[in-house]
């Protein structure tokens, strides 16, 4: 340790003397003049290739560091990358890389009129300059080129994803076919969904409405789409039992879909007359204003049951606690992981994550949907098997298996 420190110190004295900073008079005297001005050795072996798996307009460069980077004269503080369209120049500076760097990806713009436009299929020449603290002292590598950039048609880095997409599609189609063929598919009980029917019955007895909250998702959230199905089912039951239904919405597009869904359910139940448009209404597209309004509705209308299904954020607990205060039965479901704990704690029944998506299949009992649920379970089994194999190989020091799952950009 001490020896190392001493060595480092000696080295440092050298370095600072060479780079021309902060040395005392004696040190300068002690060193030969030529060394203080000596340029570093140049970086070597500069290579450039087209960057893989992209849309062109990019070249990947590599080089070996100067022998004076971190050793030797130790005066290299970084590298500058230069590019030209012919081996004789003119070269333009493209990047500055700190010392120790051995590569750079030269990404240019796609647009012709952009400043740093990097056309595809044009030969370029590169050189790398090792720079020192003194801007006049540097060393340049040999020029490398020509190298062309071009776009790929397929991103090989994402093959693992593609494999899984195909596997999934195949398994889903297989089980849908099987289900169509009349195979009996079992689905376990989902307490949260079973409770819905019961809760509607209770609301009817009490003569109070049901509040259905679709959450803060937009029309594009999968959780919202899953929620429509459950809303359809609830609306149908409500129509049959002639209970009230309140659906305040956060997103205008979600509102339009919800209106269609509820209307269709009332038609289905044979009670189109009982449907009126203001059952489903827009509140505002602001998180806490929406919560304020729904809270008010809960305390004023005193719904017998509150159902929260969809995407929820911080408001989950505000809604659920206010609902509990109003004495309503509460059923919730969300795929927002951070909010599940709050629903679990404050609601009577909660669909945890994936259960929300399964609910639509569970309710529909349609062979097609059940088939896809079965496929999902097989994928889960695959996940478990992969995890076990991965765990074993990892512990025997085989890294190759893990690399199979490596997805590059």
């Amino acid at each position, binding site marked *: 340790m001490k020896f190392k420190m001493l060595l480092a110190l000696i080295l440092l004295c050298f370095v600072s003397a060479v780079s021309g900073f902060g040395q005392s008079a004696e040190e300068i005297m002690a060193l030969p003049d030529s060394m203080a001005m000596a340029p570093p050795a140049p970086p070597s072996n500069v290579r450039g290739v087209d960057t893989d798996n992209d849309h062109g307009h990019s070249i990947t460069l590599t080089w070996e560091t100067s022998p004076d980077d971190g050793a030797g004269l130790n005066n290299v503080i970084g590298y500058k990358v230069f590019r030209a369209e012919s081996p004789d120049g003119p070269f333009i500076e493209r990047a500055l890389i700190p010392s120790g760097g051995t590569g750079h990806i030269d990404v240019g713009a796609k647009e012709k009129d952009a400043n740093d436009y990097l056309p595809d299929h044009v030969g370029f020449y590169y050189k790398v300059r090792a720079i020192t603290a003194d801007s006049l002292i540097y060393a340049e590598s040999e020029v490398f080129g020509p190298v062309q950039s071009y776009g790929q048609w397929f991103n090989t880095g994402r093959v693992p994803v593609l494999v899984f997409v195909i596997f999934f599609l195949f398994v889903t189609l297989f089980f849908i076919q099987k289900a169509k063929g009349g195979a009996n598919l079992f689905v376990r009980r989902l307490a949260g969904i079973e409770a819905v029917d019961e809760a509607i019955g209770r609301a009817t007895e009490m003569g109070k409405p049901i509040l259905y909250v679709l959450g803060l998702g937009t029309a594009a959230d999968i959780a919202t789409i899953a929620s429509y199905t459950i809303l359809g089912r609830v609306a*149908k039951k409500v129509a049959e039992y002639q209970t009230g239904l309140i659906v305040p919405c956060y997103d205008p597009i979600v509102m339009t879909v919800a209106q269609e869904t509820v209307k269709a359910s009332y038609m289905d139940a044979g009670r189109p007359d009982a449907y009126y448009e203001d059952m489903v209404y827009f509140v505002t597209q602001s998180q806490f204003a929406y919560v304020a309004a729904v809270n008010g509705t809960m305390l004023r209308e005193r719904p017998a049951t509150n159902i929260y299904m969809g995407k929820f954020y911080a408001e989950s607990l505000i809604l659920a606690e206010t609902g509990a205060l109003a004495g309503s039965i509460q059923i919730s479901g969300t795929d927002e992981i951070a909010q599940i704990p709050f629903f679990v704690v404050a609601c009577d029944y909660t669909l945890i994550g994936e259960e929300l998506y399964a609910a639509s299949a569970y309710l529909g009992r349609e062979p097609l949907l059940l088939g896809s649920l079965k496929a999902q379970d097989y994928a889960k089994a695959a996940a478990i098997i992969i995890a076990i194999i991965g765990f074993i190989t990892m512990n025997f020091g085989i890294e190759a298996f893990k690399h199979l799952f490596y997805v590059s950009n």
Partner: protein
Amino acid sequence: MRRQVPLIITFFIGALLVISVFIPPMVSLKETFTLYFDIIAVFAFFLGGGNLLRVHLGKLYGKKQDWGFSLVTVAGFAMMLIVGLFKIGNPGGIAASITAEGSLFQKLFEYIMVPLGSTMYALLAFFVASASYRAFRAKNREATILLIGAFIILLGRTPFGMMLTSWIPEQLSILQIPNLAIWIMNGPNLAGQRAIMIGIGLGVVSMSIRILLGIERSYLGEDK
């Protein structure tokens, strides 16, 4: 026509985007389509605003219960919309950003929406307490585990956690409550989160496939 066209659109657009992930020249489709979605969403504002006005003007007109408060909503809406759309009281005029400092729009935001929104958010401080009181009860095994998990973490975040267990020697420091809390967050908690995440990942993939194949069509507002 009415039923088929939307399903075809969904399938075509969805498949295109799935493929685009693997084909570098198509990668930018993602951004373009997301931008389209934003633009469509602005059109939907008309539907939302129209509905809001309809509901509250209806209450006002019919002098229904609480119609006075509907007046507040309509007035607030009209005020903010006029200020916002015409950039009234914006020192930089039409060229300046709508949220420019000192603009009337930004002031209304700062002194009406911010206090209201952050106070609503702050209600959570009260609700975490009432929810803990109501729900963390050792009713059965699951509830007990829930309770213990929460309690250790809560204790670990106060000075008392350390005070109670500082007598435990450094070699066994995992048993000191703050450390135990950290371990729970990084061990069992991580496992649970990960299991839920994998499940959700699969659920979304499966749901997306159902949507693309036209099996799931609740988003079209039809009940199967």
